[in-house]
């Protein structure tokens, strides 16, 4: 079946080639892209299958780099500026050991310039131990507070129990389940059945790929990450909704027509919304990018950065899947319906017929031949009126060389 479809779309490709090729950007901008995404869907399926398999394998074998909220532990943070000059991670480590007689697990300096901070991590300390460490850090290093004076209050600490991350994640998973159910209901009402199913598949893909990339790259997973994952799903669906809306609009009444197959129509819708999808994604990503950079430079780590990173990853996965996975998949699912297959058959028959006629007319069809041109134009107009959007009256058009009397509408 897939072969049959491929030949059809392939057959349409030469016809779809514009006489004068514009630059890719211009084609994107005006929406005439004519990128044959649906026709080459097998390639994309292979791509996505490999991607998902790699992600699953990585999750299974490599697992995740879990943050302090999952492992449990204490983190102490202070400005890297002290009354006696800059404070290094080693200084902080020494002060920690002096206070408790044991070593901190890690110490690092994050952020730059005045925003730089030193972070110490250790196993979970109780309130008294935290107090001791803070006192020792203050006595030995005198970190400067916001007013430029050394202050013990300039030291932040956070103690997290090992179960906290699990609790947050459990809630997030429940939220994910509830969201999936509600979204399914929403999609079922808003779209037709196969569209809803495809959108869900794309959604699952986005979760898997985002999680997989986290596992592969070894980004730290924090509760903020787990949560961010949920909002990505909103974005992912957002893109899919935009594309499917257009597919739905373009394919209205397609079964009664022989102009295009479902696959070609879907591909056209995809091209028409391509710029919209790219634009919405770029615009959604720009603030996230700002968040990521600022979070990284100024704070080094934490909520801002975690949320931004997961959004960035997930949005990219989301836009990819809504363009290259959702629509092709929709076409294949739709084509399981014999009605659409028969329609595709009729389209092919008509094209064969046209090609034969064109061959008969041979090369002597001439744009200058008014009669032939008019016949062709009438046909085109009839198809246009029936296939896509309802008929419109192009009043404001300049009527170049067209006999105005012929237009009755």
């Amino acid at each position, binding site marked *: 079946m897939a072969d049959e479809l491929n030949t059809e779309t392939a057959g349409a490709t030469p016809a779809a080639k*514009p006489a004068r090729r514009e630059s890719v950007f211009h084609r994107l901008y005006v929406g005439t892209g004519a990128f044959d995404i649906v026709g080459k869907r097998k390639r994309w399926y292979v791509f996505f299958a490999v991607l998902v398999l790699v992600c699953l394998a990585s999750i299974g074998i490599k697992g995740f780099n879990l943050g302090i909220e999952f492992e449990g532990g204490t983190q102490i943070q202070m400005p890297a500026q002290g009354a006696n000059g800059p404070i290094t991670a080693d200084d902080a480590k020494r002060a920690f050991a002096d206070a408790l007689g044991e070593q901190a697990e890690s110490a690092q300096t994050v952020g730059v310039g005045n925003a730089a901070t030193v972070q110490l991590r250790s196993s979970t300390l109780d309130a008294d131990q935290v107090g001791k460490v803070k006192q020792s850090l203050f006595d030995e290093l005198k970190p400067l507070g916001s007013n430029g004076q050394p202050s013990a209050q300039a030291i932040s600490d956070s103690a*997290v*129990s090992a*179960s906290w991350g699990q609790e947050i994640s459990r809630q997030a998973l429940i939220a994910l389940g509830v969201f999936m159910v509600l979204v399914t209901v929403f999609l079922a009402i808003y779209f037709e059945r196969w569209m809803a199913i495809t959108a869900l598949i794309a959604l699952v893909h986005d979760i898997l790929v985002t999680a997989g990339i986290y596992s592969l790259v070894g980004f730290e997973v924090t509760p903020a990450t787990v949560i961010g994952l949920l909002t990505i799903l909103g974005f992912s*669906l957002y893109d899919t909704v935009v594309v499917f809306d257009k597919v739905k609009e373009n394919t209205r009444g397609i079964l009664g027509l022989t102009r295009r197959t479902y696959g070609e129509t879907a591909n056209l819708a995809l091209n028409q919304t391509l710029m919209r999808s790219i634009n919405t994604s770029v615009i959604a990503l*720009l603030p996230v990018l*700002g968040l990521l950079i*600022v979070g990284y430079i100024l704070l080094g780590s934490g909520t801002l950065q975690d949320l931004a990173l997961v959004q960035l990853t997930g949005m990219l996965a989301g836009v990819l899947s809504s363009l290259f996975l959702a629509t092709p998949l929709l076409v294949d699912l739709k084509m399981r319906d014999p009605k659409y297959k028969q329609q595709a058959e009729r389209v092919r028959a008509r094209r064969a017929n046209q090609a034969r006629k064109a061959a008969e007319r041979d090369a002597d069809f001439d744009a200058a031949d008014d009669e032939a041109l008019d016949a062709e134009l009438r046909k085109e107009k009839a198809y246009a009126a029936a296939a896509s959007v309802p008929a419109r009256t192009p009043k404001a058009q300049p009527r170049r060389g067209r006999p105005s009397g012929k237009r009755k509408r």
Partner: protein
Amino acid sequence: MAPPAGRIRPGRYLGLFILIVVVLYALVFFTGGGKATPKLGIDLQGGTRVTLSARTPDGSAPSRESLNQARQIIETRVNGIGVSGTEVVLDGSNIVITVPGEQGDQAKKLGQTAQLGFRKVLDMQQATAPPAAPPPGQAEDPAAIQAAKATRQAADLVTGSGDTLAAGPNASAALSAFTCSTQDPLRGNDDPNLPLLACDQNGTAKYLLGPVFLKGTEIDNAVSSPPAQNKPQWTVDLTFKSEGRKVWGDFTTKNIGQNAAFVLDTQVVSAPTIQSAILDGQTQITGNFTQQSSKDLADILKYGSLPLSFTSSDATTVSATLGLASLEAGLIAGGIGLALVFIYCLVYYRLLGLLTIVSLALSGLIVYAVLVLLGRWINFTLDLAGVAGFIIAIGVTADSFVVFFERLKDEIREGGRSFRSAVPRGWVRARRTILASDAVMFLASAVLYAIAVGDVQGFAFTLGMSTVLDLIVVFLVTHPLVALASQSKFLSQPKLTGLGGVQTLAAQRRSARKVPAGAGAKES
């Protein structure tokens, strides 16, 4: 004369929007003290936040009633410390204590269950190994609680009852096998009617204790008192209620020379030898106390024990410096995000980009007002995650404009319309998509807000709120402004709208119809 379908009267919509802004800002400035700043979370202004998770022996969900009771007791404990501005709120089965400013360290100890019980000491050994930290996660596990209960509270550890109570035959071996640990799974979850193997607070001694004969609820008052001649350290002085006085009197009369243990949350605070009968209902707990710790204990005992046991899931103190840095970082990130979107929109959409900027700015205006009002009305605090929510929402808001503008292009390209006639039609179609996609986004935020715990709620709340406000702005500002621009000859020049390329294309299309059939089949 009513405008034709799809056309609107932009002035009315803009007027409605101005009305909304005026009402919102009137509320901001003329109610609730008129302070026009939103409530900031402790991670943005500095302070301490402690999240206490309720923990039940069998892992079941604690009842609402006991959670509320626990919240109230913690609130009285907070008031006992006398830190102002402290909030104690219930978040699912967590109690979150928030202390703004720099005095929050004491709040970290407020979650102590403080179940005090008096048990008879039947056997005692020095702890041989130093207390070991258990593997992470274990202490909160209901299975760990059950296991600890089975070994450390076995009924056959003791024989007899009341005055004949004595260590059972296997007790000595069990006590030797028992090791102290810094995280006790039984903490606050021991059964008072069973014997108990317990350690002292330093983990240096371990005890076999009889069942609780006198409960902490019989304590009438507790005060901490300074060191005196015969007591080198701070102590906590207890006064019993009448029933407690009688029981304590009885016990001390019959057990002179024996030891009684004060057990607080399954840890032995002290196990003094009874020198003489104590009949006046007064007693002292001595231990390794400092002034602060004796006061803490006295306060906690005075305000009663919690009906549930809690673990501190997350105890965070953010210095004012770090809070300020975070707030700045958030604002800078938001600024950069906005600037990037502005530039992109201007380059890409020109005049329409300008309208986007105006819409985003107005959106920011009402978001701020709503933020201040929500802080006042429902105590909504803006935290770092919430700031992230707003920044990410910039994208969502701008997306709605993109959907609309790209729709306009579609209309011009495919319908061969002018900018002016494309607006009403494009709007009708874009509206549907905008509503659907915002609905999905809102759904995600609402689910997240309702179910998630911790930081996330702020994020979900701001994102969801921005989505709703986005709708208001798109409907009442962006669309009317675009409609106005399309009616002005000057503003709808192709050079200004950035739609020139599309219009040229539409013109090309029309002339392309004269080209042989092959090319005509390309597109409609």
